[in-house]
């Protein structure tokens, strides 16, 4: 068989885009010192909100807005629990994933029982792809060259020290969670806009792959984005090689399906050595 690289390139952008956006959400959260394993739940909420409202109103932009708002809501819930109540960040993130799965599943069931149409006409994918490519570039610039970015990094190093320097870590972290919601929201909206309908649990672990990309990228925007898109690339590639003879043999589908994860894992193991985790991550 011959590989059509244009086709694989397109699939890489579609598969990697939601991962990249979610990883950027994770990056902003963790650079401010807040662990975020609730990306999955936020993506799911955004996917559900986008799909349900788009299908109901026939207006995909309104759907996306509601989708992003749902993710922001969950992001602020995380902010309340870790910044105000100082709950363990991992516990709060897990709770968000569980709640989001429960609520979106319940709503989907309710809509199905009413016989409501659940598929919708989305805005074109390239719009989302543009966002997914622009986000890491913008964030890289903002982290380096804006007050917002410098404060974020400072707070991620040590909340106490930045307070001494006159930066309020609470304010910075609240602001960061707002952006987490927006980015994870666009990620979920992008995901659901591909098949143009919601499915319960459709994020299928993408929020965690995004976290892996974040660690792989050493909490830096461009390497993290590259990690996310390379996962997308390997996924696109394995979907094309599956069921074909490679080196004269048809390999089992499970092996292909595991390939992107395996390569990410190997990469992670290699890069963890020089990881640059924000010093205050999960500690304040």
């Amino acid at each position, binding site marked *: 068989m011959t590989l059509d690289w244009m086709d694989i390139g397109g699939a890489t952008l579609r598969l990697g885009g939601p991962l990249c956006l979610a990883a950027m959400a994770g990056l902003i959260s963790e650079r401010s010192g807040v662990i975020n394993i609730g990306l999955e739940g936020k993506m799911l909420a955004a996917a559900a909100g986008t799909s349900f409202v788009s299908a109901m109103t026939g207006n995909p932009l309104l759907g996306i807005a509601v989708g992003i708002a749902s993710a922001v809501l969950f992001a602020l819930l995380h902010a309340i629990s870790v910044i105000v109540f100082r709950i363990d960040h991992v516990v709060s993130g897990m709770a968000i994933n569980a*709640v989001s799965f429960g609520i979106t599943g319940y709503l989907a069931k309710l809509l199905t029982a009413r016989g409501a149409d659940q598929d919708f006409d989305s805005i074109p994918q390239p719009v989302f792809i543009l966002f997914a490519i622009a986000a890491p570039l913008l964030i890289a610039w903002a982290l380096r060259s804006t007050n917002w970015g410098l404060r974020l990094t400072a707070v991620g190093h040590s909340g106490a020290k930045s307070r001494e320097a006159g930066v309020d870590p609470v304010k910075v972290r609240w602001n960061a969670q707002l952006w987490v919601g927006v980015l994870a929201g666009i990620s979920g909206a992008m995901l659901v806009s591909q098949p143009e309908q919601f499915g319960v649990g*459709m994020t299928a672990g993408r929020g965690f792959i995004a976290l892996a990309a974040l660690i792989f990228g050493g909490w830096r925007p461009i390497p993290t984005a590259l990690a996310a898109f390379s996962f997308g690339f390997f996924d696109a590639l394995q979907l*094309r090689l599956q069921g074909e003879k490679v080196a004269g043999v048809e390999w*089992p589908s*499970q092996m292909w399906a595991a390939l992107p994860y395996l390569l990410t894992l190997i990469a992670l193991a290699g890069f963890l050595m020089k990881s640059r985790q924000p010093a205050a991550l999960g500690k304040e």
Partner: protein
Amino acid sequence: MNRVGAAILGMIALAGCTAGQPAQTGGDAEFRVALVFDEGGRGDKSFNDSAARGLERIPSELGGKIQEVDSKSQADYKTNFEQLSIDKPDLIIGVGSTMEKAMFEAADSHPEQKYAIIDVPSDKPNLLGYTFREEEGSFLVGVLAGLTSKTGKVGFVGGKSIDLIKKFEAGFRAGVKAARPEAQVVSKYTEDWFDVAKGKEAALAVYASGADIVYHASGKCGLGVINAAEERGLLAIGVDSDQDDLAPGHVLTSMIKRVDLAVLDAAKRAKSGNFKGGTVVLGLKEGGVGITEMRHTKHLLPPRALEIVRAYESMIKNGTLRVPTTLEEVEKFVPPPVQTG
């Protein structure tokens, strides 16, 4: 502060975790049937929804109350069966082969309770197992795909690569082979049942390889497969339920698996009083599997296609054609000549 917050979050988390509340529908209070969906759940427009249709016919056709129970994950099966077994309805139905272990354990520990399970054979006196000859229906859609394809290449998208789904693939491949021996078949597995976006990408990969028709047996991933067909202006083949309406004109046909009939049949047996455990096999002959009427796509078929399909159908029904159930059998499969007109 810490504790208050933890308690609030804990409560929220628990609220998110509980399985769906049982939905009760009125009727005669005597006869009660409870049905546990698999983790795919209602709304898959496929396997689980077919079971739901059967369940919904019970109150009007047999009288009595029905109850639905969702499973968030496979870990819920055991709890669901245990709780229901305490509640003691007349019949507990489990939808899907993934519940096999939990169901057999429940049947062992509650010998007086009647159970039924879809897609699993049973040798227990209080458990009825319904299995389907999916390969027979898949064979017919394979024949249609082989005859209809313009590129001479068709594809299959499976969910997880388990034996049950390989049976769909085997039947499909055999059907294509019978209708058009030189045609190529490529298959991809998403290794997932819920990832709608992945289902779409898998189908796009199949189309990219030059195929123009994709048959799926992949749960909710299939909704993505059908969306891909619509987007590319090509064809998909639906599964389990009639999925022809999901993208009219882009779903060639659907391989229908009458899970609803099995559910209704189990309820009838439970109500009649002479409920016996064991396995019931539903194939083409029994009306357990089949293809749709192709409301939107008949004009796409080449002439005589329906005749050829019917000829194969009667050969399967009268036993002269045995459809392969594994990929190894497909290799050795020699399609019998078909006589039409």
